[in-house]
């Protein structure tokens, strides 16, 4: 495969992944906060095509769980109650309404907004948990999609921030040289040398611990952006350093071009390749950072799902030992990372570097 095709393939796959988490509320059968206390740690629901009497159905169906008195029961399928899978349902079920009503008036007010199309669903009282449910009976599949939204967005925004800082500081350092360059490059060394997770912890330590989910999300992004600017800055500086000596830059300067114009028009476009490659490397790193921090309870907080705090339930021994589907949010990271690495590799190869 040519490098160009590999880049397009990776980009296409990433695009599909991002689109599916972006449209989480359409693909997910339930809202991520909706609980069903009757069904904690329900295993993934099995889709059936062949019924009791051996008849084949084109439309898949599920069996509802038999109600049992055991506290944590493996779902025993009640073969008398089959529920066909419905596609393109207008979601507004009785249980959900009741849940919303319980949660208070302010949610009740926005209830009409919460009615929207979903790709698939089943009729009440059956529940479809494609990837099982968690300790509060919330649908893991829905939480995974919504959590993916948070985690992937955090990675992308933080990488954007870090690259922005890196681009500006690297360009200034390379273009002006002198003591500015010295100062910026010394701090780059400082930030590069530190183990980034320790640094992230230290920076996180100075922020308030108890925050709303939205605040902590943006703080997390800011923290990661602040920590990650050093490597792009160094690489951009290198490019700028060589670009500013080119003849056409000198010529443009001779015609009276200002520094800002020179940077914008002639110097920074050279750094495009470097910045793109760095994006391919930084985004997965930041997604991982978000996952790690949220896993440790320092990032995005419940009830907002993120891939990290979905994994956090595994800190309990019995969850890890008995409910394998709780690992799936972690496994979902693998295709994301694989495609980002493939992209970064292809970009590096295109730039003529042996990929590492």
């Amino acid at each position, binding site marked *: 495969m040519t490098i160009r095709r590999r880049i397009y393939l990776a980009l296409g796959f990433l695009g599909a992944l991002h689109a599916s988490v972006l449209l989480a509320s359409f693909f997910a059968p339930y809202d991520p906060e909706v609980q069903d206390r009757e069904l904690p740690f329900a295993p993934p629901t099995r889709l059936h095509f062949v019924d009791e009497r051996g008849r084949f159905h084109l439309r898949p169906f599920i069996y509802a769980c038999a109600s049992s008195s055991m506290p944590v029961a493996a779902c025993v399928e009640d073969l008398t109650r089959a529920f066909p899978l419905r596609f393109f349902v207008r979601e507004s079920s009785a249980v959900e309404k009741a849940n919303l009503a319980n949660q208070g008036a302010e949610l009740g007010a926005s209830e009409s907004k919460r009615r929207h199309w979903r790709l698939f669903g089943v009729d009440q009282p059956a529940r479809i948990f494609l990837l099982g449910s968690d300790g509060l009976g919330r649908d893991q599949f829905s939480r995974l999609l919504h959590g993916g939204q948070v985690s992937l967005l955090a990675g992308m925004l933080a990488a954007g921030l870090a690259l922005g800082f890196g681009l500006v500081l690297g360009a200034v350092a390379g273009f002006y040289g002198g003591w500015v360059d010295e100062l910026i490059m010394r701090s780059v060394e400082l930030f590069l040398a530190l*183990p980034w997770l*320790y640094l992230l912890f*230290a920076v996180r330590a100075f922020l308030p611990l108890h925050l709303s989910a939205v605040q902590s999300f943006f703080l997390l992004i800011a923290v990661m952006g602040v920590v990650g600017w050093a490597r792009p800055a160094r690489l951009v500086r290198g490019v700028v350093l060589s670009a500013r000596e080119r003849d056409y830059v000198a010529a443009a300067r001779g015609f009276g071009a200002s520094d800002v114009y020179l940077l914008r028009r002639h110097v920074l476009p050279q750094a495009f390749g470097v910045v793109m490659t760095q994006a391919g490397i930084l985004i997965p790193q930041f997604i991982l950072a978000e996952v790690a921090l949220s896993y440790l309870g320092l990032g995005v907080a419940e009830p907002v799902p993120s891939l990290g705090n979905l*994994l956090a339930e595994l800190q309990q*021994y019995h969850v890890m030992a008995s409910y394998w589907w709780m*690992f799936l949010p972690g496994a979902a*990271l*693998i295709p994301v*990372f694989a495609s980002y690495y493939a992209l970064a590799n292809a970009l590096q190869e295109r730039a003529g570097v042996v990929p*590492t």
Partner: protein
Amino acid sequence: MLRYFTRRLLHGLFLVVGVSLLTFFLLQLAPGDFFAEMRLNPQMTAESVAAVRHQYGLDRSVATRYLLWINSVRKGELGFSFAYDSPVACLLWARARNTLILTLSAMLLSWLIAVPVGLGCGARPGGWSDRLCLGATSSLLAIPDLLLALGLLFLAVRTGWFPTGGMVSPGFDDLSGWGKVKDVVSHFCLPVATLVLGTVPVLVRHVRAGVVEVLASPFIRAARAHGITRRRLLARYALRGAAAPLISLLGLGITTLLSGSLLVEVVMSWPGVGPLLWEAVLARDLYVVVGAVMCSTLFLVGGNMVADALLFAVDPRIRTE
């Protein structure tokens, strides 16, 4: 030679001082401190909270506190932990030793694996072994560290082959000398395996890239024209040529390894610096956070020193500088 090492030493010193300033002043920006929650306690009056804060010097200015902290570093105390009510240094040393055991053995093991594998992969770029190697490393790279640690822990829970956390078993003190070693080693397997699986693919790729680059250079072709065997060519010439970037990677690799071990330590409850730092961040135990970060910086500077010394020994170009 002396000049080279003095310069490296000064650079290390700059790093240590810079990091201490950075963390110290960043932490001062924090709203609230360790005693902030005491205000919510109805049994504490505002005066007694103020008194405690005064006792620990939290009402002084940042600069004064930094100087006080430097003074306590000089005395070998590294500040004072509010939560443990003892000097930070006492808490840190035993844990630093455990982290060091973990990271050093993981590093050693992963280099021992990565160098021969990388050499084998890079020997014939584009060959089947190379493609196999690239495929294997990129699939390993795609597995996040956290998942790797959790997966291995799951294995331990399900099979019972390995202990699931900590560094020693409950009855450790009663064991005989050999039993103690066996106990620690069995606790040690999983964290080291996680770290090694996380670092080996990165290292293999760097070794491979270095070897590929060197093999394309003219002196290798000249050596081949002289009839030097392939094996000798790889082991003596290619590896040596690729050594310089790899050794500086040794220094930088410590950074990633320390970050990785922070996570692994917390997940597998290895009693290293990681869990200490985590708890300190949650409890706003200011000086413990600073101490743990400083500790990691010291490891790093030490690692860089070793890398510099090695570089000096291997690369003659540096000696003539």
